[in-house]
């Protein structure tokens, strides 16, 4: 479900890009230290955004130092020193990863399902460890509540994509706003809602054709069915609307961030804005095949690791 949110290095200042890499690296380290070194392999860009948004709202910058790591032993990389936000993101990632694997066990069939079953004890251990290390009170309960209502919608075969995206939007809204206070919590919640909806809709769009083949739930497939059109022609007909809608999620996040009392242009804020404007649109899903996208993601990861542009 994750991995659709990306930073556009071409549109960032070099120092802001260095900051982004430092957060990415810091999160990886935090995941390894907090949960398990193996868990660090599941590192995703989405949780970097969680950190960036929260830090740009609080105005906290975090310290950056140069460090070596196992994957790149020869060069020293900028890395954010461990702090509360990094630890929080790592724990959230552990809980969500477990939920996603549990979800896959329900949905998938055949060998894939067996694979996820084998994986589940491991992810459950990570999740439990994260819960033991401490998450804001009530967060885990409300997260599973939202996941339940999502399962409910899926069972009901909700045909409106926007309605189907609601629970996941609320879920991320909870994660983004947890432990912040007053206005910041509201702004972070609004951003989380739009980011969550973006992720859900992009994921659904991405899986639409496959889900149609396998007869799995997908709001876009149902929406096309409702208008009695084959999926591919419906999608190409609705392409513009879908792209605009996805882009609007980024625009709304940006607008919410602009309401923040703290208007200082910190590197975290520059990165968050870059993601909202350049990194949250459906182009990559609609115009590229899965294989191309995987290759792109690989190059991006490599770029972030090596610092090359």
């Amino acid at each position, binding site marked *: 479900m994750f991995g659709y949110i990306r930073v556009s290095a071409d549109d960032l200042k070099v120092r802001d890009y260095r900051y982004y890499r430092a957060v990415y690296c810091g999160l990886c380290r935090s995941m390894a230290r907090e949960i398990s070194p193996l868990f660090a392999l599941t590192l995703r860009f989405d949780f970097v955004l969680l950190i960036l948004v929260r830090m740009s709202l609080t105005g906290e910058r975090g310290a950056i130092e140069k460090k070596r790591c196992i994957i790149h032993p020869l060069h020293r990389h900028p890395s954010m020193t461990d702090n509360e936000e990094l630890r929080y993101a790592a724990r959230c990632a552990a809980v969500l990863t477990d939920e996603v694997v549990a979800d896959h066990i329900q949905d998938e069939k055949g060998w894939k399902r067996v694979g996820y079953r084998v994986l589940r004890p491991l992810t459950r251990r990570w999740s439990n460890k994260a819960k033991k290390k401490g998450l804001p009170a009530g967060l885990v309960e409300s997260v599973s509540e939202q996941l339940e209502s999502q399962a409910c919608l899926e069972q009901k075969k909700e045909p409106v*994509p*926007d309605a189907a995206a609601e629970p996941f939007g609320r879920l991320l809204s909870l994660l983004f706003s947890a432990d912040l206070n007053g206005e910041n919590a509201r702004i972070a919640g609004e951003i989380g809602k739009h980011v969550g909806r973006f992720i859900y*809709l992009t994921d659904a769009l991405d899986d639409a054709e496959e889900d149609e083949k396998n007869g799995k739930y997908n709001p876009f497939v149902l929406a096309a069915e409702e208008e009695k059109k084959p999926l591919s022609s419906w999608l190409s007909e609705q392409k513009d*609307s879908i792209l605009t*809608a996805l882009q*609007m999620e980024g625009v*709304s996040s940006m607008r919410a961030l602009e309401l923040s009392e703290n208007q200082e242009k910190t590197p975290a804020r520059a990165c968050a804005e870059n993601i909202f404007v350049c990194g949250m649109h459906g182009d990559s899903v609609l115009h590229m095949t899965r294989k191309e996208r995987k290759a792109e993601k690989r190059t991006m990861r490599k770029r972030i690791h090596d610092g090359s542009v």
Partner: protein
Amino acid sequence: MTDPYKVLGVSRDASDEDIKKAYRTLARKYHPDNYAGSDLSDLAEERMKSINDAYDTIQKERAGKGADFNSSQNASYNAGTAGASAAVILQRVRELMHAGRFAEAGVLLDSIPQNERNAEWNYLKGCLQMQRGWYFDAQKYFEIACYMEPGNAEYQAALANIKNSADRYGKTYRSTEGGCDVCDLCTGLACMNCFCRMCGADCFPC
């Protein structure tokens, strides 16, 4: 629940016209504008709500009963008197939205039966979906509204607005592109020189 006919002050066998008239008189009386800033505004709202509910109930009841009623409801918003009731509700929806009471507006809007949903209904529904952040759905309703009433500037503006605001941020973010740099200056000078030669005045003789 109280008798909806009693709330509107009409008898059970009153005609649709009479009910509409009664509803409109009462709605005008309890209109929120009349109570703006007053301590009683919440009370007025309550009244208004009960009138709306009563009116909706009667509408639904009658819509279920007679075929002749249904057929008259099919008439379009501009053409028939039947559409006028929907127009009153839509007006009310606009007021609620203006006051920021979106949930109530949504309920009221959805209470309008399928066959009475005109261009304005679709437009208002689109506005509500916009407010919730349901952008894909919002565009769908705006498009239907534009399709049903092609000349309406309000509906077209709404549709254009959502598309524009999606584009605008990307453009301002990348606004450093464009403008004039040294290369542009040189090219400009070279071009100017070419044109000047045509008239015999050479800036840079060569």
